[in-house]
């Protein structure tokens, strides 16, 4: 009896969507090759049996060429015969290329059924597939599906029972393509269609001149949209809620606890001019929820909304082509832009996404650059909220400094690290327009992730900070680092605490700068340093797990070095 089902297929054919449909477990899916870099497991019920379903990263063949592909192929190889089955997911709009892996799987003797996905997208592209014929030619069950809407997935389950391995001769690569040619010729009919508007757009975005203009427009529009949605949510929903409904509630808590008491210090924090100030009080029930819900969450929603649209339409690989040249100077290739963009949301998924890069050298460079120069949404939201009130000039300045650091560090790393980086080889997917419900689901999933992961840490963190401040436990650390902070960076010595807290959460760290009454320049330096220096603890752990302790220490040394240099330069050199 089957106990385990592997989902395998080329990159970007919708494996994760099928997985979510089969198991009900939500995973992130997008329209670019390499969305899935981790193995996700879930369960489905077939009759009375409980079957484990494993979503594997996409691969073009059983000879892996990146870390993510290797993981997929190895796991499949280790599977026990007789207990596991394979669902090979195929993109119906690109039958020919997908069949290469299918034939390899059949030749290896894996018990297999084929899920012919994206069947809804074939008609208007002039593709007609005779799936009965395909089934006959391949000798395995072929089930047409459209996983995004759920069509056909039920049949997939029914046919799962009759799965059995075939015995086939192994073909050479050329022989395999010949056989595919014969299969495709008889099972697929193409009718000529005029170029649609979508195809013209697909074309325009991969040509140098038009592509450049479109990319500038897209990036500009995305940025504007994130700000518009983020600010809109803050001023229309979150701020009114906190000031009109939440404030009276905590004021009552404050009067019950009596200002000055230990518990009041912990829960409500300091009163500013006799009142609760959500930005400055630093209490577990005041500043902590205000930072997370009214300053950061709106931007999380806005950022992931815009990112999800770009991901699902399939624009990101096109950006990769345009940036390939620049990224080559940094020892990376164009595809590295995708981990970088994900890193802007949170460095952790960004660093995980570097698994799609081929070599260890590239992964180290990309990881270091992300953790040094890519500020996450929580940090950016706080910079916008606080530094933005001084002037937009400083906000732009932070980005300019970070961008320069990424470029300089990248060039240096590329020069000094041995080895070479492989070149870009990337499939450019067609544009697709996912149903709104799919988009909403993904957005909701990401927001939920943020709330469950960030909020407990922030509440605990603020409690911890208050305890340490109350018992003067920071004085020791402040004493040690004060000369550096004061002498080199021109910051007050209390900023040490904020920089140390940056290891815990970047947003709380910026929040801790507020009561210090910094000048615009000091604030600018402190915010930039928070971005460059030590990554937060979650990022730290991920780098350790992904690259090992040695590389983590190397990356950390680079970050500390860069912080010292940049902090000093900003203080003495550029800004006077």
């Amino acid at each position, binding site marked *: 009896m089957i106990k385990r089902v592997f989902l395998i297929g080329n990159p970007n054919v919708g494996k994760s969507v099928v997985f979510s449909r089969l198991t009900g477990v939500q995973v992130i899916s997008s329209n670019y090759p390499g969305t899935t870099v981790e193995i996700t497991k879930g369960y489905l019920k077939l009759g009375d049996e409980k079957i484990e379903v494993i979503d594997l990263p996409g691969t073009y063949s059983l000879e892996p060429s990146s870390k993510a592909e290797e993981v997929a192929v190895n796991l499949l190889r280790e599977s026990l015969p007789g207990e596991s089955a394979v669902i090979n997911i195929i993109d119906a709009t*690109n039958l020919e290329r997908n069949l290469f892996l299918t034939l390899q799987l059949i030749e290896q003797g894996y018990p297999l059924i084929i899920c012919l996905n994206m069947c809804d997208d074939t008609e208007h592209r002039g593709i007609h597939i005779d799936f009965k014929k395909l089934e006959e030619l391949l000798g395995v069950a072929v089930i047409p599906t459209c996983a995004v809407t759920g069509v056909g997935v039920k049949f997939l389950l029914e046919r799962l029972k009759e799965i059995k391995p075939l015995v086939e001769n192994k073909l050479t690569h050329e022989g395999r*393509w010949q056989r595919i040619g014969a299969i495709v010729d008889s099972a697929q009919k193409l009718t000529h269609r005029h170029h649609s508007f979508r195809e013209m757009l697909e074309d325009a975005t991969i040509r*140098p001149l038009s592509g450049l203009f479109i990319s500038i427009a897209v990036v500009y529009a995305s940025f504007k949209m994130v700000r518009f949605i983020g600010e809109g949510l803050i001023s229309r929903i979150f701020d009114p809620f906190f000031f009109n409904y939440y404030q009276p509630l905590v004021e009552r808590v404050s009067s019950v606890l009596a200002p000055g008491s230990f518990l009041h210090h912990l829960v409500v924090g300091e009163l500013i001019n006799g009142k609760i100030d959500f930005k400055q009080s630093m209490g577990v029930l005041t500043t902590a929820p205000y930072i997370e819900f009214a300053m950061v969450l709106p931007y999380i929603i806005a950022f992931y909304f815009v990112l999800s649209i770009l991901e699902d339409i399939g624009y990101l690989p096109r950006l990769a082509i345009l940036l390939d040249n620049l990224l080559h100077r940094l020892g990376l290739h164009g595809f590295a832009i995708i981990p970088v963009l994900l890193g802007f949301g949170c460095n952790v998924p960004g660093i995980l996404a570097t698994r799609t890069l081929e070599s260890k050298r590239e992964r180290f460079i990309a990881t270091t650059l992300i953790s040094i120069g890519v500020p996450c949404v929580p940090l950016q939201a706080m910079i916008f909220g606080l530094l933005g009130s001084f002037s937009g000039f400083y906000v732009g300045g932070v980005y300019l400094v970070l961008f320069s650091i990424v470029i300089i560090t990248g060039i240096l790393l590329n020069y000094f690290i041995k080895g070479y980086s492989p070149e870009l080889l990337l499939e450019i997917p067609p544009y697709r327009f996912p149903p709104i419900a799919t988009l909403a689901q993904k957005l909701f999933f990401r927001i939920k992730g943020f709330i469950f992961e960030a909020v407990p840490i922030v509440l605990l963190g603020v409690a911890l900070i208050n305890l340490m401040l109350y018992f003067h436990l920071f004085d020791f650390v402040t004493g040690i680092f004060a000369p550096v902070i004061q002498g080199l960076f021109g910051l007050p010595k209390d900023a040490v605490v904020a920089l140390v807290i940056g290891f815990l959460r970047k947003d709380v760290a910026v929040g801790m700068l507020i009561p210090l009454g910094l000048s615009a320049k000091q604030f600018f330096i402190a915010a930039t340093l928070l971005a460059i220096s030590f990554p937060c603890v979650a990022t730290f752990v991920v780098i350790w797990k992904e690259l090992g302790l040695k590389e983590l220490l190397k990356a950390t040394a680079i970050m500390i070095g860069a912080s010292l240099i940049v902090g000093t330069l900003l203080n003495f050199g550029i800004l006077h």
Partner: protein
Amino acid sequence: MKENQKGKVLEIAGGNSIENKFMSMGIYPGREITKLSHFALRGPVTIKTGRSVLALGHGMAAKIILEVE
């Protein structure tokens, strides 16, 4: 080779691993491919093979030896 020009792959002038990688993505001797665009300063090249559009680094594209029609 100019934009929108077609050509037949003669050979892949590279190591085994790159040959395999190309092979699995649908670039192999005898296959007809179309060049779509290229980017300045030894930038990437985009090609079409079958129904897939691929972007390749300049050096990688140079490894595909074509017979231009």
